[in-house]
C-alpha cells in the first residue's frame, strides 16, 4: 500500500481538516478524543485508491483528490434556500427531518408530528453523553473520516409494534459551496414495527461540495420496513455514503437506492441477515451522464440459515459516465437453506460510457441456492426500430426503452406514491439528457 499523502493537491496539510474543525465538532471531551483517534486512522490510510480491492473501480485519490473543509453553519439566506428545496423535494404526507450542510434544522422538520410516533434525538444531543454512535467495526478510511468529523444526524427509534402512518423522510440539503458535510444517523426499528424510511440528498444552490454520510440501521424481529435512498446531489458534488444494516428474524426489508446526481458517488452498504426467516429485497438504479462516476457496492451477509435475498440493479450510462456495481453475497458456514440471487444489468448509451460489474459469491455452506447474473450492452436496435417505425422520434423511443429497463428495479418499490415519486426523478433525468 502507498504511504498516506501528508499534503493534498492544493497544498493543504491533511491534518488541517480536523484541526480547523475541532472547535465546532459536537461532543464531550471524551467524544472529541475518540474523534481524534478516528482521524488519525484516516490520516494513516488516506483516501481510498485503486490498490485497495474494495475501491478498485472508484479511486477517490484520482477522482476527488482531497477532502474539503467542514461547511460553516448555514446562515439565514442558506436556510431560506433550504426551505424552498424542502418544498420541492418533500414526499407528500411524509414526516420530514432536514439536515442543512450537516446540521439538523428543527424549523424545517416535523419534529412534533414525528415524536408522537417515534423517539427522536439529534446526533449532536447523543454525543454530549458518549461516542457510542461513532464507532463501527469497519476499517474503511471514509468511515473513519466520518466518525471523526460527523457534525449531526438523526437518531430515531421506532417502538416495538408501532405502525407508522406516514413515511419518515430525512432530507440532506447542501447550500455551501466548496465545503464538506459529515452526517451520521441511526435508526432502530422495534419488533413487529412497520415503517417507511426515505433519505433524499439534494442541493440548494450549492456547488462543488462533498457529502460523507453514514447510516446505522437495526431492524427488530418481525418488522416490515421499506428503506429508500434518493441521491440527487448537484452535478459537481461528491457523495460517499456508508450503510450498516442488521436484520432480525422474520423481517421483510425492502431497500432501494437511486443515483441521479453527483460527479462522484458511492453507496457502500453492508446488510447482515442475523435472524432466521428474513426476506431482503435490495435494489438500485444508477442513472449517469456527462462524466459522472456512480458506484454501488453492496455486501449481503447471510449469517444465519433460512433467509432469502434478492438484488436487482440497473445502470443506464450516457456520455462519458462510469457506473460501478460491486455486489457480494456471503453465506456463512451455518447459513444452510440460504436462497440468494443477484442480477445486475448495465445499459450503455454511448461509446465512451463504461460499466464495471463485480458480482461476487462467497459461500461456506453446502445446502444453498445462490446465483448471480450480470449483463452489459447497448439498446436493442430492433426494438428502437420498431418504435421509430411507429412514429416515435429517436429520443422518445430511447426514453421509453430506458424507462422499461429501469422499471424492473423501480417496480420493486411496493408503495405506489413512492414509486411514482421515484419515476418522476427518473423522468427528470431523462429530460436532462442532451
Amino acid at each position, binding site marked *: 500500500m502507498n504511504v498516506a499523502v501528508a499534503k493534498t493537491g492544493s497544498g493543504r496539510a491533511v491534518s488541517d481538516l480536523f484541526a480547523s474543525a475541532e472547535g465546532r465538532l459536537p461532543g464531550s471531551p471524551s467524544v472529541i478524543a475518540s474523534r481524534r483517534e478516528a482521524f488519525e486512522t484516516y490520516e494513516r490510510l488516506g483516501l481510498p485508491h485503486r490498490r485497495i*480491492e474494495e475501491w478498485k473501480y472508484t479511486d477517490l485519490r484520482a477522482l476527488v483528490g482531497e477532502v474539503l473543509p467542514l461547511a460553516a453553519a448555514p446562515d439565514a439566506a442558506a436556510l431560506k434556500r433550504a426551505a424552498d428545496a424542502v418544498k420541492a423535494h418533500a414526499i407528500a404526507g411524509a414526516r420530514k427531518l432536514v439536515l442543512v450542510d450537516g446540521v439538523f434544522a428543527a424549523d424545517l422538520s416535523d419534529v412534533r408530528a414525528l415524536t408522537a410516533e417515534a423517539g427522536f434525538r439529534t446526533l449532536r444531543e447523543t454525543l454530549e453523553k458518549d461516542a457510542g454512535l461513532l464507532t463501527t467495526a469497519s476499517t474503511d478510511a471514509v468511515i473513519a473520516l466520518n466518525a471523526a468529523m460527523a457534525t449531526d444526524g438523526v437518531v430515531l427509534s421506532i417502538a416495538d409494534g408501532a405502525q407508522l402512518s406516514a413515511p419518515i423522510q430525512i432530507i440532506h440539503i447542501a447550500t455551501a459551496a466548496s465545503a464538506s458535510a459529515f452526517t451520521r444517523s441511526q435508526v432502530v426499528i422495534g419488533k413487529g414495527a412497520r415503517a417507511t424510511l426515505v433519505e433524499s440528498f439534494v442541493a440548494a444552490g450549492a456547488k462543488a461540495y462533498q457529502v460523507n454520510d453514514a447510516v446505522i440501521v437495526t431492524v427488530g424481529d418481525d418488522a416490515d420496513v421499506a428503506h429508500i435512498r434518493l441521491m440527487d446531489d448537484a452535478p459537481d458534488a461528491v457523495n460517499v455514503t456508508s450503510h450498516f444494516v442488521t436484520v432480525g428474524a422474520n423481517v421483510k426489508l425492502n431497500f432501494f437506492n437511486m443515483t441521479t446526481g453527483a460527479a462522484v458517488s458511492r453507496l457502500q452498504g453492508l446488510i447482515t441477515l442475523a435472524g432466521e426467516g428474513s426476506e431482503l429485497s435490495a435494489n438500485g438504479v444508477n442513472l449517469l451522464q456527462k462524466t459522472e462516476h456512480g458506484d454501488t457496492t453492496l455486501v449481503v451477509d447471510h449469517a444465519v440459515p433460512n433467509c432469502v435475498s434478492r438484488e436487482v440493479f440497473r445502470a443506464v450510462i450516457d456520455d462519458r459516465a462510469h457506473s460501478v456495481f460491486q455486489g457480494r453475497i456471503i453465506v456463512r*458456514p*451455518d447459513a*444452510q437453506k440460504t436462497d440468494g440471487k443477484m442480477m445486475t444489468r*448495465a445499459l*450503455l*448509451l*454511448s*461509446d*465512451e*460510457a*463504461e*460499466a*464495471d*460489474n*463485480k*458480482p*461476487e*459469491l*462467497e*459461500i*461456506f*455452506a*453446502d*445446502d*444453498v*441456492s*445462490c*446465483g*448471480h*447474473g*450480470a*449483463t*452489459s*450492452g*447497448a439498446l436493442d436496435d430492433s426494438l428502437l426500430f420498431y418504435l421509430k417505425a411507429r412514429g416515435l422520434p429517436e429520443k422518445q423511443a430511447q426514453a421509453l426503452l430506458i424507462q422499461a429497463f429501469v422499471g424492473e428495479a423501480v417496480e420493486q418499490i411496493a408503495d405506489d406514491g413512492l414509486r411514482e415519486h421515484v419515476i418522476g426523478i427518473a423522468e427528470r433525468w431523462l429530460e436532462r439528457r442532451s
Partner: protein
Amino acid sequence: MPAVQETVERVKRIDVDQYRYGFETLIESDKAPKGLSEETVKFISEKKNEPAWMLQWRLEAYRRWLTMTEPTWARVDYPKIDFQDLYYYAAPKPKKTVTSLDEIDPEILKTYEKLGIPLREVAMLEGVEPKPGEEDPARRKIAVDAVFDSVSVATTFKAELKKAGVIFMPISEAIREHPELVQKYLGSVVPTSDNFYATLNSAVFSDGSFVYVPPGVRCPMELSTYFRINERNTGQFERTLIIADKGSYVSYLEGCTAPQRDENQLHAAVVELVAHDDAEIKYSTVQNWYPGNSEGKGGIYNFVTKRGDCRGNNSKISWTQVETGSAITWKYPSCILRGDNSRGEFYSIAISNGFQQVDSGTKMIHLGKNTSSRIISKGIAAGKSQNTYRGLVTAHRKATGARNFTACDSLLIGDKCGAHTVPYIEAKNSSATFEHEATTSKISEDVLFYCVQRGLSQEEAVGLVVNGFVKDVLQQLPMEFAVEAQKLISISLEGSVG
C-alpha cells in the same frame, strides 16, 4: 441439496490420500547449488549451452525479479516461501548424449510407464501394424515430450512431425536450433516483467516444450507434454511456447504429477501461445500435482502464468483445464483477443479436496473488433478446501461488437469448505455485449422427478443429469485426456448442477 451419500463416498475415494502418482523414482541427478543468485542463472544457462542473448535475457529477468514482491491478492493462504531454500535446476544425471529411447535411464522410462505415458513409439514408427486386440483402437497417435524435473527427457514422433514441417522439441533445443523463432516470440505474450512468478520463471526456466506450426499446416497428431517433479526441494519452472502460423491448427495436451512428500514444492511455469491469422490452438491440461496429505501437509504450490495471444484476425485459442491436484493453485489461463473476429474459450473443471486451495479462472481481454469469448467454469469444493473462480472480461474502447458469455457454477460437498466467485466485468464501449451467470445450487427437483418416475433410481437420475451437465467441459478435451479426466471427475461432479 447437500451432496448425496454416494457422491460423498466417491469423492472420498479420490481423496488426497489416494494419490496414485505419489511414488518417487530413485535416480541420480545433477542439481544446481541451492538458492537463487546470478550465479544460479548463469549455471542453468551454461548447462543448457545457451547463446549469450539468452543468458542476457535471463539475467535481466532476474534483476527485475529482485525488485518485485509476491502477489497477495488471491484467496490462498500459505507460509512464506523461502526462495533461497530451493534448488532451481535438477536434471537426471546423463550417461552420455542420448540419441534414442533405449539410452534413456530405464528408471525414468519406468516412471513414465507407471504413469501410463506412451513414450515408446512402439512399432508404429517402423510401419508395423499393431496386432488386432493388442492396441486400444481408440488410441490415436500422440507425440509426447516428457519433462523430468527440469529437463526434457524424450520427445517422440519427431520424424513424422518433421515431415509435416511441425517443430516440436524441448525449448532448450529450440533456443539453439531455431534462435530466430525463439527470439521473436519468447516473452512476447508474457513479458519478463509480467508478474512475480512469471519473472522468476524467465530467469530460471530450465526446459519445456517448443512448438511451431508453419502456415497452412494442420498438425497431424496431438502434441503432448508430461511434467513430472521428482527431485526433493526442487522448484520446477517450465516454459512452453507454441506458435501457430497463419491458417494452421494444433492441439496440445499437458499433464502433471509429482511424488508424495511432506514439504511443499514450487511449480512456476509460463505458457505462451501465439495464434496468427486464421490459426487455432487448442490447449488442454489435466493437472494432477500432488495435493498434500489429508492433514494438508506437503503438496505442490502451482503458481502458473498461461496466456494466449490471438494476434491475427480470425484466430482462435481454446483453453481446457481439469484441475484436481496441487496444494495451492494460482492459475488464470488468459486470451488477448487482439485480431479482429478472434475468439477465446476457457473450459474449466476445478476440484478441491482435503486442504487444497484453488484460485483459478481466466482473463478475456477484448481488443479487436467483433471478438468473442466463452467461459464455462465448474468448481467443486469438498473436505476443508477453498475453491475460487476469479475471472476478468474486459472490452476496450475500440473493441466494437465484442461478445462474452460466462457461466460459472460451483458445488460444495460438506460444510467445512468454501466456494467463491469473483468475476470482474468491464465494458468500455456500448456495442460490447456481456452475459455472465453464476450459480451454486442443486439439481432441479422437476428433472429428478421426471427421471425417477421413468424408473431410474435417485442416484442414476443424479448421475444422468450431471453427466449431461459436465459434458460441456469434458467434450472439449481430446479423447485420451477425456478418459483420464472423466475418471477423476465424473465422480465428484455428481450431486452438483448449475
